[in-house]
């Protein structure tokens, strides 16, 4: 198409549709040059711009107006222009700023990963691992909040929240009644229902999947297991409310958690209903499709489908057995 615009990110060029954000252009290129995103979520309108981890440097505005942009910009909310040149990991300024943002995101984070159910699939964990420093310069008490009960399915752990607003957008856009929101201001702002009230409707469970940290977790999975000891399997069922396409997380033969399927950027492919998420935890409820592909860099991919004697759930299912064999061969070949 001739009306595509050309953007160059860290020296790699790509033609994208007009109106594409720098971040999404980078995702089309893929690989290391994709800026991290803690608040942006492509499926939630209006999200992004807040966490500032995706800051990049625009060294050339466009072919027409080649002036660089004076400040670093949030790549998730900045539209590409034809001829734009962007620096992400090739700009020391960007790397330094990102390091700063990570440090600031962490100063009030409890760092309770050892007891956090999100550990292993936490974006803040990944982000700090890549950009953070091992020590903190913050010497004050960390911020804490009173625990709030928002119902029997979803656990809110406000101290871990980074205020990405994703769950608020989700409640607004995916569910039919938002009862929680951002209350208070500044560093006292919190996710809350204000009055004690359960966040409960057919799609409320999606706030768990969109949460980049362990602020909103699945109460039915609480303290059950570490995610890297569980095995994700794609499965589906006929669901009158949603697509029914989910990931089942097995421990032994038991489904101990159901989530939506997440892509390589941690975004769900399709939102699922609470019925699928909380009420169907038997293998017999589902049609198993096969093992979920997990990035080899993820801790979740550790000790998975590569055993000579696979766990019984794999042994009983031809599809899983097949992929276990495949993976086992691949691993042992090395």
């Amino acid at each position, binding site marked *: 198409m001739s009306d595509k615009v050309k953007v160059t990110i860290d020296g790699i060029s790509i033609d994208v549709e007009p109106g594409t954000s720098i971040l999404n252009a980078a995702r089309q290129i893929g690989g290391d040059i994709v800026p991290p995103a803690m608040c942006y979520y492509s499926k939630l309108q209006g999200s992004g711009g807040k*966490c500032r981890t995706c800051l990049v440097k625009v060294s050339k505005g466009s072919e027409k107006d080649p002036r660089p942009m004076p400040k670093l910009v949030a790549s998730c909310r900045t*539209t590409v222009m034809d001829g734009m040149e962007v620096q992400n990991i090739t700009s020391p300024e960007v790397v330094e700023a990102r390091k700063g943002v990570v440090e*600031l*995101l962490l100063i009030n984070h409890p760092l309770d990963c050892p007891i956090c159910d999100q550990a292993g699939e936490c974006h803040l964990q990944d982000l700090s691992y890549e950009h953070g420093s091992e020590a903190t310069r913050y010497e004050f008490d960390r911020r804490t909040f009173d625990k709030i009960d928002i119902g029997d399915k979803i656990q809110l752990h406000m101290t871990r929240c980074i*205020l990405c607003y994703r769950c608020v957008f989700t409640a607004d856009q995916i569910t039919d009644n938002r009862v929680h929101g951002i209350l208070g201001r*500044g*560093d006292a702002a919190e996710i809350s229902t204000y009055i004690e009230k359960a966040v409960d409707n057919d799609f409320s469970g999606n706030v768990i999947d969109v949460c980049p940290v362990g602020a909103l977790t699945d109460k039915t999975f609480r303290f059950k297991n570490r995610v890297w000891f569980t095995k994700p399997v794609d499965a589906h069922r006929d669901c009158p409310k949603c697509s029914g396409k989910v990931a089942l997380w097995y421990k032994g033969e038991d489904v101990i958690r159901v989530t939506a399927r997440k892509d390589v950027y941690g975004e769900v492919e399709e939102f699922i209903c609470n019925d699928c998420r909380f009420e169907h935890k038997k293998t017999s409820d589902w049609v198993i499709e096969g093992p979920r592909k997990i990035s080899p860099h993820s801790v979740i991919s550790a000790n998975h489908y590569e055993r000579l004697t696979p766990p019984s759930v794999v042994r009983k299912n031809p599809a899983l057995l097949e992929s276990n064999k495949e993976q086992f061969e691949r691993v042992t070949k090395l």
Partner: protein
Amino acid sequence: MGRKLLLENINVPGINTFDVYRQKGGYRAVEKVLKGMSPEDVVEEVKKSGLRGRGGAGFPTGMKWSFLAKPEGKPRYLVCNGDESEPGTFKDRYLMTYIPHLLIEGMIVSSFALGANTSYIYVRGEMMPQIRILEKAIAEARNAGFLGKNILGSGYDLELYVQPGGGAYICGEETALIESLEGKRGNPRIKPPFPAISGLYNCPTVVNNVESIAATVPIINDGGDEYAKLGIGRSTGTKLISASGNLNKPGVYEIELGVPVEEFIYSDEYCGGIANGKRLKAVVAGGSSVPILPANLILKTLNGENRLMSYESLADGGFASGTMLGSGGFVAFDEDQCIVRNTWNYARFYHHESCGQCSPCREGTGWMEKVLHRLEYGHGKLSDIDLLVDVSKKIEGNTICPLGDAAAWPVASAIRHFRDEFEWHVSRPEEAMDRNYGLAHYADPLPKPEAVAAN
């Protein structure tokens, strides 16, 4: 006496009423534009005047107006920013209290220029008395036929409303103000789109400061060229300066831009010198956000020239040795004031006022406040000083809106110019609890430019 444009009649008894204001030539500008000028003519006059936004950023008002999108079938809005909250600034309060019709007249002129048929004056909620004053003034103007349908038979309609804020400094940021006016939390929007394209109710919108709007009245009455003759260089016209702190005569002064800072502080026409016979230690020249300067640097630039009250002269030397005119909030510190305490106080302000939307500002402002608190109360470490500079750098430029910069600059500049006072708080904590560091060398003659560059 300098020429006054906005406050010329401020001492006339009853100037807050429509009748007296009208007798003194008020609403001439409305008559002039509605009876003989096109909206484009008005924009042109304002462009010619060189008027720069009086809220703090100093962006040329005429240019801002010319960016306004004019799509078919969509209303356009003018919103007046009366959310005056910048510490050190109280000129808009003064103007709205004593000469409200000047603002109303300016709103009519500006709304006409922009093609707005509904305009709002957003006033911070704490100024409830001023809100009542404006509402009364609007009612008077409406009774006299200057508001409503078909104003002065010109076919132009305008409705004008006053909107109260709820107590949030951040709503002085134009997109946060728009959000607030839409009944939401005052979270600044992520730009683009700019309000000129998509502002209030997603319609093209211009947000202007109270003083900028009021200044359009003399600009129309006398012509943009006449206005531009006042002032100096690209700092045209007059500016309201809010003078506070340790001055003999704090208050609001209308100055012709270009008055020497020294004259402004010491002459009897303006502030009348430092109160109680004390000496000047430092000045925050444009509201709490702008860099603080020690007495020597505020009176003279590094080249030894007199510093003037103008956008350019105050900025001379960049942030290394200069500051900004900002909103014109001129705060003078006498020799007995503690810079560390004041910096902590400002940091607390920004911490309290951060909306919490973006992470560097939400987390960084609180961190700076805590470190400064520790320094002020004698528990600080020498490394805290560099830590503060570093945290301020991590905030500056990386946030959604300028509040991050506004929080970072006072801290960075205080350490830049008063580092020894910070160090003294660390090395002599007990003494620092008992007494202040004093004037030290901050009023000394300027160092040679080279010497500073070497630092």
